[in-house]
């Protein structure tokens, strides 16, 4: 017993933290990918997360099948990402770094308000798919099956991303473009097509995070902004641009939030900022360094 809380509930909460962290990881990787290659901080990332949840809801109403919507949503948000990159972000390349930030900030307003206009201001519940409902006995405690599913799916996605970036030709081009885009263009590789793709992958990841989170937190127009801020905290702590940084920082912050909620429920919303302030004071360049990467 620690502070009146039993070990089994502590371990359950640690698992919960892992699951919360996994959703952060998906968002932070998308942000990092887009930023790394294009030096665009996508302030609409939270809006894409929200849009993903709504698209999932829409597909569930349409087909009644969770698995179909799990495939459909990243495609839909990815395609929206393509369109956004092509028509709004592309004219800004070469200008000051602040302009894409401002633009995507405006875009998030447009997306949130469009969703309000179409689906209304009140939220919706998102049913857990029946195959994943109910608890699983982990031996020491019961744990919701759906949350284990989220942990596993995210781990698979992260593995495939790692494989894609490290072991394929396209991944090689993306990594090279992140390091020195001028040199890649000198080698006659058309990076503008890769930008297009990476923006789509990043927003697609945000979308799938949205549909994965929907059964746990419901679907409403303002769900994106809190997620965006938490993803920013992960990125500030873990550093923009590294997969490992995003994974470790994401899980760490998930645990911090989850454990604090167990002991001081009131502080659950606030602790993430305190944590970030401490990291900034102790290690201003984030836990894994990489200061100077376009700071």
């Amino acid at each position, binding site marked *: 017993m620690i502070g009146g809380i039993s070990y089994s509930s502590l371990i359950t909460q640690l698992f919960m933290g892992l699951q919360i962290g996994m959703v952060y990881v998906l968002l932070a990787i998308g942000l990092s990918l887009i*930023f790394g290659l294009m*030096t665009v*901080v996508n*302030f609409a990332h939270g809006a894409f997360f929200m849009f993903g949840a709504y698209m999932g809801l829409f597909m569930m109403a349409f087909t009644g099948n969770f698995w179909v919507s799990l495939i459909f949503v990243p495609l839909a948000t990815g395609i929206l990402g393509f369109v956004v990159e092509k028509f*709004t972000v592309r*004219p*800004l390349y070469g*200008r000051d*770094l*602040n*302009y894409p*930030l*401002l*633009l995507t*900030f*405006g*875009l*998030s*307003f*447009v997306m*949130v*308000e*469009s969703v*309000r*206009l179409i689906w209304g201001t009140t939220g919706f519940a998102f049913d857990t798919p029946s195959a994943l409902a109910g608890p699983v006995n982990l031996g020491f405690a019961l744990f919701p099956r759906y949350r284990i599913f989220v942990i596993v799916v995210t781990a698979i996605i992260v593995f495939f991303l790692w494989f894609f970036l490290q072991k394929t030709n396209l991944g090689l081009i993306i990594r090279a473009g992140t390091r020195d885009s001028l040199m890649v263009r000198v080698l006659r590789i058309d990076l503008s097509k890769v930008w297009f793709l990476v923006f789509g992958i990043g927003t697609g990841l945000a979308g799938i995070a949205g549909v994965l989170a929907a059964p746990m937190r419901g679907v409403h127009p303002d769900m994106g*902004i*809190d997620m*965006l*801020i938490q993803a*920013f*905290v992960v*990125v*500030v702590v873990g550093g*923009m641009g590294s997969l490992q940084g995003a994974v470790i920082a994401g899980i760490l912050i998930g645990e911090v939030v989850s454990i604090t909620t167990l002991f001081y429920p*009131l*502080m659950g*919303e*606030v602790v*993430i*900022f305190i944590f*970030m*302030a401490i990291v*900034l*004071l102790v290690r*201003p*360049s984030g836990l894994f360094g990489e200061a100077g990467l*376009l*700071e």
Partner: protein
Amino acid sequence: MGNPSPQKFSTWAGIVSFLFTRSYLGLILVLAILPFIVPYEAIATQILIFGLFAMGYNILLGYTGLLSFGHAAYFGLGTYGAGLSLVYLKVGLFTGLLIGVAAAVLGAMGVGFLCLKRRGIYFAMLTLAFGQLFYFLALVVFDNYTGGDNGLRDIPVPPISFAGSNFSIIKSPLSFYYFAFIFCALSILIMHRILNSPFGAVLQSIRENEKRSQSCGYNTNRVKWIAFLFSGFFSGLAGSLHAIYYQLAALNTLYWTNSGAAVMMTLLGGMGTFVGPFVGAGVYLLIEDVISVFTTSWQLFVGAIFMLFVIFFPQGIWGTLQEKVRFWHLRE
């Protein structure tokens, strides 16, 4: 032809160029008669308050080149600082305003110190995150005092004594407008002084090239921090006036959409121009006023217009006009 002929102001070009070169005086003049130009007085008061807010924001975005997404925090600290002290401490009106501004400056001090530990894009993310911290503090942690979601209601507005008699500034919309106008005009003069001082020049040098101003011997981090404080000061003053005007400290003054309003107003009007933030505030609020007659999602249109401005007119309305006038002068 020995004597240089005095500059003529008889033509339109002359009047326009006079206003552009002494834009702060022109701005005060326009604000002095604003309630009689716009459709109704309430909107003039809003333009005044949010113009002041955006002007404070512009110190950072327009003159120092720092993109903050968390200015709702200082506006809201002003609102809640003034509101809480008027409700619980029963202080006088000016003391309440002072406490609101002090709360905002203190908040800006702390958050500015932390956010300036990182630069560039990280700065933008940190300001958004810490901005939202104050929202959650008011919503969840201190909701016994702040009223949580409902906001702090029924803020008393004590009468002020002037020439031996007491009178209430919220008796009529116009009396509040001119009460706020005095603060706003003083702020404009102070702002003008700051920007035309050597300190203002250093700010703009940081915007143009931070490394170079560092090698000129300026402690740019310190300068940016002071700019952050000034910015928090004006934002907090705007927030305090907001609390008194509505007799309410609304929770959404702390929400990120309020930071967004400052960003949008400043960019729409013209960042880095003196008059731009007020022009932006006016345009933003008039768009809101017109469109919300037809639909509640006016922010959709404001957001879309904002995106068009970022792509096609990044200098904003006033900045583009200034450019046009300059071009016109050159042609003559």
